[in-house]
């Protein structure tokens, strides 16, 4: 069953200048519970595509539908984690999560919401940081909190905009594992769209990889059918992964030279 449908989408920041389309002829259908990565070099419009899905900006032509309903703005069925700054600096860690939950659970009591916030903080291993302000935390810790908030709000769709790209290698690996663990632990799996420029990250995490070219078109759509749960070391050493990575690198290289 299709969760997200993107149909003949065109987008431009300055209206209708033919050669200034950021995205052009985008057609994507994403299944319910699917983990899809959108990959491409910087400036290819992948973040723009994610913002369109989030409902912060709107398509110039074409349409985006979720469960058959057109997207007309932000919605509680979608959660977003940005690369930076998903957290509000004047709220401490717990307040940030509580604030998020409050926006979706408007009728629930304070106790319920606080318990839920604590539960998710514990899941990401940050329960001891409840009263810390984002400014006093490392990037990695902040992203953990942002992920905890996104899961605590329990949206059907999770949109991740390069959430790990500001982290060091060790933290990146830890957070990727954490993301998979949270995602796989749920019975009704969330549909995840991840924007990244990290090829290994895309291979390890996703069911599908969509490659965007520099001109804002879909270059290729890969199926990644490694069994889950995945073992990072085994997967990365396998021949299949090696070939996949080579394919992706050459496609990205190609689209680069065409784009210039």
């Amino acid at each position: 069953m299709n969760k997200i449908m993107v149909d003949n989408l065109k987008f431009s920041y300055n209206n209708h200048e033919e050669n200034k389309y950021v995205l052009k002829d985008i057609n994507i259908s994403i299944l319910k519970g699917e983990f899809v990565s959108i990959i491409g070099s910087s400036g290819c419009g992948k973040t723009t595509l994610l913002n369109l899905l989030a409902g912060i900006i709107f398509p110039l032509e074409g349409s985006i539908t979720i469960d058959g309903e057109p997207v007309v703005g932000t919605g509680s069925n979608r959660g977003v984690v940005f690369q930076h700054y998903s957290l509000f600096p004047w709220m401490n860690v717990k307040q940030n999560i509580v604030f998020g939950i409050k926006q979706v659970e408007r009728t629930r009591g304070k106790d319920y919401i606080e318990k839920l916030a604590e539960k998710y903080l514990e899941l990401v291993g940050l329960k001891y940081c409840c009263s810390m302000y984002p400014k006093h935390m490392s990037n990695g810790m902040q992203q953990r909190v942002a992920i905890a908030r996104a899961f605590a709000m329990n949206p059907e769709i999770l949109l991740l905009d390069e959430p790990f790209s500001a982290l060091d290698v060790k933290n990146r690996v830890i957070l990727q594992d954490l993301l998979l663990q949270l995602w796989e632990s749920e019975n009704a799996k969330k549909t995840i769209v991840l924007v990244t420029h990290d090829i290994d990250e895309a291979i390890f995490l996703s069911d599908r990889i969509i490659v965007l070219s520099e001109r804002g078109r879909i270059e290729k759509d890969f199926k990644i059918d490694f069994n889950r749960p995945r073992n990072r070391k085994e997967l990365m050493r396998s021949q299949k992964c090696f070939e996949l990575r080579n394919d992706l690198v050459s496609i990205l290289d190609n689209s680069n030279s065409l784009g210039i």
Partner: protein
Amino acid sequence: MKKIVKHINIALVLIFLCQLLPTKRDAESSLPLLIFVLILYGYYLMQLRFNKNKTRIRTTKDVITILYYILTLWELATSKLDIIDKVLYPTPSVIIKLLIQELPEFFKGFISSFQILLIGYIFALIIAVPLALLIGWKERLYNAISPYTKVLGPIPPIVYVPYIVAIMPTFRTASIFVIFVGVFWPVFTLTLHGIFNIDKKIIDSAKVLNVSEKTMLLEIIFPAILPSIIRGSSMGLSSSFGILTAAEMIGARSGLGFYVKYFSDFLDYPKVIVGIIYIGIAVTGATLLFKKVEDRLLRWRV
């Protein structure tokens, strides 16, 4: 040996050496000055004994040393050598004595001034902040209002004083109104400025949480621009105190500005100087208090 020959000790000894000179202004004892100097020295010794922070101790020492030298020169010029005018330049001892004697008057003036200040200030905050939030958020409203703010905002509030004193029934209401005007504009313009410079990422982060418009204004935009609001408020605080004391010199029957003006009319310059020092203390105290509130409200920024 070197430990004793410190600058502060030399300065202290100098003041006492001055006392060997005969006093040229009779009937004025130098005792208050000496007591004051010794109290300061005692404070320094306490710091030396109990404060662990080396820089703090050194700063205290340097500040007191400078004060000692100023007092020495002052004492020499007035009481000992009498080279400057008697009426215009009182001795340090006279001023120190008056500072204590006039404390009740100071408190009366302080309370009178700060009551007016606080009422006008709070009124200005309650009206300026929500108004700026609303106008900053609604583009059409902003476009309609901004020509007025551009013209009215830069008018120095002090020029309203004579007119407002004339049209208001009492001096008190007039002062409150002047303070209101003086605080309103910096708070209003800086709040607006804050809204226009708010980080778009914050707005986007809030949008994707699907917040209502009311939540967006009250729980996102307001705290996000709180630093700007506080900056405007602190600008308003110091400028409005200036306006108030100036206004008090024109028409009041109480307050710190009135105190200074009243005694200068009688050529009682020692009390004028004391009044000026009091105003300095009051402003410093208010600013320190404000800083405490600011640190508390913006602790997430540190």
